[in-house]
C-alpha cells in the first residue's frame, strides 16, 4: 500500500528528501560571478543579467563571449557576469562593440544598455550600428528613467510621468513624447531580429530568455543586428515597492511599449508605424 508522505515523514524529513542534488531543477547559473548585485531590491537588471548568462551557459559560448557595459546602473555589469568585458563611455557601447566585433568577427559580442545610454546620449551610435547591421546583440533595458543619477527624465519617460527633472510630470509640449527607439531601429535594414520583452513575471521571463537565445543565434549565423528591449522597473526612481512598480509597469508602460517580437528573420511582424 502506498503511504501518504505527510503521514509518514515529519516536515523536516520530507524536505531533506526533496532537497538533494538529484532533484535539482533550478539553480542560478554559475556564469554569474556570485558577487552581490549592486542593484536595488527587485530591480530587473539582475534578472536580465542572469538570463543572458543562462543563455551563454546553455550555448557553451563563455570562452567566445565579450560584453560591453554601459554608463548607468549596469556600469558594473562586468562584476556580475563571468565573461570578458569592456566598459564603454556613456552611450558609446554600440561603437565599442563594433570595434571589438570587427576585429573578432567570430566571437559573440553584446552590449547591455539603459534607456538614457542607448536612446538619448547614444542615439547616433545605436542607429548607425543597427543600420550597418553589426553582427552583435544589443540588450536594451528600458526603465523609463535615469536610474543611476537619481531618477531624472529619460527619453523613454512616459507622458505625465514624474521624475526628478519633471516634477510635475513629463510635459510633451516641451519635451516631446517618449521615444520608441525599438520601433525605429526595427525599420532599419541592418536589424534582423527586434523584440520587446519583460522579466517581472515567470511567464514573461521564460519568453524573454527565448528572445535572448534567438538574439545570440542570429549573431551565430551572422544575420545582422539582434536588438532586444526589456521593459523593466526602477522602483527607486519610480518611488514604489518592487511589486507596485511591476504592477505600474503593466498598467502604464506596456500599453505604450507593447511586448512581443517586432521583427523576425529580417521581416517586420508588427505595424511599427502605427505603434509609433
Amino acid at each position: 500500500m502506498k503511504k501518504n508522505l505527510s503521514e509518514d515523514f515529519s516536515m523536516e524529513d520530507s524536505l531533506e528528501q526533496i532537497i538533494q542534488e538529484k532533484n535539482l531543477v533550478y539553480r542560478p547559473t554559475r556564469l554569474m560571478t556570485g558577487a552581490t548585485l549592486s542593484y536595488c531590491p527587485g530591480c530587473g537588471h539582475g534578472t536580465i543579467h542572469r538570463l543572458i548568462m543562462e543563455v551563454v551557459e546553455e550555448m557553451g559560448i563563455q570562452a567566445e563571449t565579450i560584453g560591453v557595459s554601459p554608463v548607468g546602473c549596469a556600469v558594473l555589469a562586468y562584476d556580475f557576469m563571468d565573461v570578458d568585458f569592456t566598459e564603454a563611455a556613456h552611450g558609446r557601447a554600440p561603437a565599442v562593440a563594433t570595434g571589438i566585433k570587427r576585429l573578432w568577427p567570430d566571437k559573440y559580442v553584446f552590449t547591455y544598455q539603459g534607456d538614457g545610454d542607448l536612446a538619448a546620449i547614444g542615439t547616433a551610435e545605436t542607429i548607425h550600428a543597427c543600420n550597418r547591421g553589426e553582427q552583435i546583440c544589443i540588450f536594451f533595458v528600458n526603465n523609463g528613467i535615469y536610474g543611476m543619477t537619481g531618477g531624472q527624465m529619460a527619453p523613454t519617460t512616459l507622458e505625465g510621468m514624474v521624475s526628478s527633472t519633471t516634477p510635475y510630470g513629463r510635459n510633451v509640449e516641451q519635451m516631446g513624447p517618449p521615444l520608441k527607439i525599438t520601433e525605429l531601429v526595427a525599420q532599419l535594414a541592418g536589424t534582423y531580429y527586434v523584440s520587446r520583452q519583460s522579466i517581472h513575471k515567470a511567464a514573461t521571463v521564460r519568453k524573454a530568455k527565448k528572445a535572448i537565445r534567438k538574439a545570440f543565434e542570429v549573431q551565430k549565423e551572422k544575420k545582422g543586428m539582434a536588438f532586444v528591449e526589456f521593459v523593466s522597473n526602477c522602483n527607486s526612481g519610480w518611488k514604489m515597492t518592487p511589486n507596485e512598480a511591476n504592477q505600474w509597469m503593466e498598467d502604464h508602460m506596456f500599453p505604450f511599449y507593447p511586448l512581443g517580437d517586432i521583427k523576425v528573420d529580417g521581416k517586420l511582424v508588427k505595424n511599427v508605424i502605427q505603434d509609433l
Partner: protein
Amino acid sequence: MAKVRGAIVVDIERCKGCEVCVVNCPTDVIAMSKDVNSKGYHYAYMEHPDDCTGCTNCAIVCPDGAITVYRIKN
C-alpha cells in the same frame, strides 16, 4: 496518485527582501521572515512548504538569483 512535490532553498544572505518571488508563486508558498539577514533585509522563506510544486517560478523571477529549486515525483 503521484504527487509532485517541490522545495526551495533561499540563499538568505543574497535575498534582498523584494517580495517579487512571493507574488509569483502560484501556490502561495513563500512569505517574508520576521528576522533580517546581515544586511537588514527580511528574507523569503517557505511558509507553506507542503504546497510547493517545484515549478521554479519564484527562482526565475528572483533578481538576485537567491533561490534554488528541487522537485520529486512520488
